[in-house]
């Protein structure tokens, strides 16, 4: 691969992967809101 193609590919893919990973990390590790929230999985917990 030529240098400019490699640069475009690696920079684009890295930026997108890092941002996606960051937001997914935030979704998974942000503590759930106290009840009632939109999600059923913690419905047994009372506020």
């Amino acid at each position, binding site marked *: 691969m030529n240098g400019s193609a*490699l640069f*475009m590919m690696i920079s*684009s893919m890295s930026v997108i992967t890092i941002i996606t990973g960051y*937001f997914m990390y935030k*979704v998974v590790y942000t503590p*759930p809101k106290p009840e*009632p929230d*939109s999600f*059923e999985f913690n419905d047994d917990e009372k506020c």
Partner: protein
Amino acid sequence: MNKESWGSRLGLVFAMAGNAVGLGNFLRFPVQAVQNGGGSFIIPYLVCFLLMGLPLLFIEWGLGRYGGQFGNHSTPFIFNSVSKKFIWKYVGIFGIFCNLTIAAYYCYIESWTLAYIFKSVSGAFAGKSSEEVAAHFGAYVTLSDSYMAVFFWLICLALNVYILSRGLSGGIEKVAKIGVPLLIIFGLILAFQGVTLKAGMKNAIYDGTVGLNFLWTPQFNSLWEPKVWLAAAGQVFFTLSVGMGSIQCYASFIKKKDDIVLNSLSAGWMNEFVEVVVGASIIIPISIGYLGIDKVVELTKSGGLGLGFKTLPYLFQNWGAVLAPIAGMLWFGLLFFAGITSSLAMGFPCMSFLQDEFNFTRNKAAMTFGAACLLLGAPVVFLGIYDILDEYDYWAGTVSLFVFSLLETILFVWVFGIDNAWATINQGADFKLPKFVKYILMYITPTLLIFVFVKNIPEIIDKIMHREIYHKIATTTDPATLEMLNNKLLFTNLSRLLLVAVFIGIGILVFVANKKRQKLSAI
């Protein structure tokens, strides 16, 4: 009363990402990049994603969550919660019309992927020439050889109806939580195979990196061409599934204090990951590895669908008796998961409308949606040679989406007011948006939408006037071709009438539902 709810936040994000990730991520994006400046295409693409794609996601998530607080889960009445002026609930018809009409032909395309999984695994392409594999696809979709396509279409419709009848958390969310990770894994395996392909290995002529080099070499002069920006805006628009009404419906089940900013950013960027990182590394590297650049450029002129269904199944045969069926299963499997997570998102707004306004049970609403798809999809399936699918796709899956997006942006940002819109979007947000996004929402996003729409007006006029068909009729002397073109003209007009009838029919249902609401509120 609609009692659906999401099971978990991750499930919601996967379902939203699954809605956005479709066949276009793997078939359309690489072709658009090849045709519009290679590596430099990513620049207008990401600019349009940030200035038009993400803001539209915020608008649709915001509209949905706001309408959901009033118990509204379909766009006519979500819009009615934002503005009481009668026109807006009729603008909301687009949110049901687009979903229903797109689902009618999308389920058929989805069924091709399901059928091709079985064909790949059973070795149906083994020992066939490239022409035979390509001809097989043509015969399959036009029902020339058998009615197997109808069988798989019915299975696909039944599967969609069954999953929809299981509800939001019990059906859609479960499928998304399995389907989205699986399609990413399948895609990464194929991308690895494509990128590590070596000339001389598995009958390849070139390294897989030759394809990547071709795809990513930037032609910076293309950045000055308006058509490249138009293509980038179009790609961003279609890849995110905005302007359909499905995002608003999913978001309407989120409560007031839950976050929509982080959720929409996660779903949007996950779609970009699947498209740019995974989608771009499969079809072009593998095709160029076997066919060379010139041949692939020629093939991309007819779009990505041909490459995906006519070329790849043949190329996989070079990978040997064991790997070829596995590769075919992975490729069509990932397309199937990409397809079904999107078609489910199209079904749910139609169901929610029937459940909210006409007290349908979930099963009855799912079956009604399936029956409507069957009736609307029948012309696409049985009149395939007249390109009815393209006609549906152009009016319902292209023009309507732009019109709807522009109108919903005006409604949310200008009619509802930017301060209300901003407060709605940021309500309960774990991730606060910077203030400049407000100005992007107000000025840049609508301007970009108008720009894209205005640039497409000449093409829309050409389509309305059937200029392409009339040109072919004028230049054809063969009586059989002439008859075929005249039939195409007739069926194209009939399919347009059908689309108009569907739109009006949904309008009548909205009118009746509104009257019912008025009677109830009077009591």
